[in-house]
């Protein structure tokens, strides 16, 4: 039985598991989204899209991703670049930059709640500086803009680390000779970054962006901690349909929408940042 059968035997548990708990649930959720009481219907999508909250929800989610992800990309590139230049304290700096990777999105929301709350640290700082004489309600239902900024900051703070780690790993794969050659020909640091690092980093950038964009559409607990229901996002609305409104089918439709957006963007970035086979290191 050895030889041929062994690899399949070793793969079987993981494969079976993924079939039952990954592929099958997706069939289920798609099925639930297009049926009601056993009959095929698109009513679930109509109900979802007909809710007054729906346009705001989609706009908030997309806008948040559009603002947060580019900033994170720049910050992650900056972190990875400065770390690679460090001669001492490199692993300490890497560990500190990677810390948010291990922090729950809910905890990240609570961390920034400590700052933005009405009796929080930002108000304290502002009043010490004499900028304000009265405490500001940053997270009240009337201050949608500051809620949005707080959520964006918490997201940038929390999930830059995951991109940074991927980019650092990718930078480690670029041969040092390229930089040495560029230096010989007189290329400055910026030119080396733009002409060598960025193009050769494309596979890592692709992974980092795809992963991060998908996570951005999943934003949920940060918003729950900071905005409550004042800043509706897709994942939160899905949760609401399931629990508050007790409608599984519409919740499934909402989940399917998030899935569709995620897959759409994954395909988009796979295509835009495609790395030709012959251009790989």
């Amino acid at each position, binding site marked *: 039985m050895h030889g041929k059968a*062994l690899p399949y035997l*070793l793969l079987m548990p993981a494969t079976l598991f993924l079939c039952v708990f*990954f592929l099958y649930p997706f069939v289920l959720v798609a099925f639930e989204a297009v049926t009601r009481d056993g009959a095929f219907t698109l009513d679930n999508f109509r109900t979802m899209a007909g809710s007054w909250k729906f346009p705001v929800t989609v706009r908030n989610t997309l806008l948040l991703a559009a603002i947060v992800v580019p900033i994170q990309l720049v910050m992650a590139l900056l972190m990875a670049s400065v770390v690679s230049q460090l001669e001492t304290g490199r692993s300490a700096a890497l560990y*500190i930059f990677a810390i948010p990777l291990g922090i729950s999105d809910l905890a990240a929301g*609570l961390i920034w709640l400590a700052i933005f709350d009405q009796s929080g640290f930002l108000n304290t700082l502002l009043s010490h500086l004499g900028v304000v004489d009265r405490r500001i309600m940053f997270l009240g239902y009337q201050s949608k803009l500051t809620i949005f900024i707080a959520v964006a900051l918490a997201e940038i703070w929390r999930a830059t680390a995951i991109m940074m*780690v991927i980019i650092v790993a990718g930078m480690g794969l670029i041969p040092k000779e390229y930089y040495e050659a560029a230096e010989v020909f007189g290329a400055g640091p910026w030119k080396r970054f733009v002409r060598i690092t960025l193009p050769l980093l494309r596979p890592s950038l692709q992974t980092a962006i795809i992963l991060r964009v998908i996570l951005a559409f999943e934003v949920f607990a940060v918003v729950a901690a900071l905005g409550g229901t004042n800043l509706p996002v897709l994942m939160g609305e899905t949760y609401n349909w399931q629990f508050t409104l007790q409608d599984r089918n519409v919740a499934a439709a909402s989940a399917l929408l998030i899935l569709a957006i995620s897959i759409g963007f994954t395909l988009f970035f796979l295509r835009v940042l495609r790395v030709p086979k012959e251009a790989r290191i």
Partner: protein
Amino acid sequence: MSAVTQTPAAASADARKAGDWLLVATVILLGIWVLLPIYLLIVNALSSPEQVTAFPKRFFPSFDTGSLSFFINFAGVARALWNSVLVATLTMILSIGFGAPAGYALSRFDFPGKGTFRFLVLMTRAFPLPLLALPLAVMFIRTGLDDTAIGLALVHTTLALPFAVLITFSLFSGIPVELEEAAWTLGCTRLQAFRKVILPLALPGIAASAVFAFTISWNEVFAAAVLTIENRTLTAFLLQSLGESPLYLKFAGGTALVVPALIFIFAVRKYLFAMWGIANR
């Protein structure tokens, strides 16, 4: 004056020195950006409930255990903590149990279907996995897995399994196959060779990926909130009590989530970059 008399070499040394300063300043600023918010959360957790709700805030902890003891003694918290540990431990066992054999098979054998399996594993990345909890909730009610630690651990395993497969794959790939072959020629069976030669070498890395699996489960919010009612985990408990719980409970709870995560990330720091490096391929 001195600028005129400076030799070109000295000028470039000066420029380098300025560059070093800028580098160190950037690293320190980024470090503060990551650490300061965590520090502020912990200041809140180590202050008395009155200080947490008071204004203006102190920027240093008073080391009063009032908030923390209120949190620990709050109805349901001790149980939620226990559930979190239980679910995370089960997730850890399941994902290593299923993932490590698959990682070994991928690193040691070439066989038809290998590409398909890798694709299945990588595909999990393109999906917002916590959404799986919605259809699974129904399936779990039918099978009696609803509101159990094992049911939630199964969902968390879909999150952690791909990482376990990829990390163990890179680990085993890093151990020369010749070592194994030498053991076979000396009369070891395949299993013995694995146990006595490969496993001791791979163990630290396997432990790191186990810790990572634990962290993923410990931090997960959405699926936990969907799938547990009576047996809520700490994240689910905190999420569902966001609306009514006082600030000091939130901050103490957030700290309880963050501190173990800090330790986990510290424990696996050596492997963080290796595992994301291979994730690019």
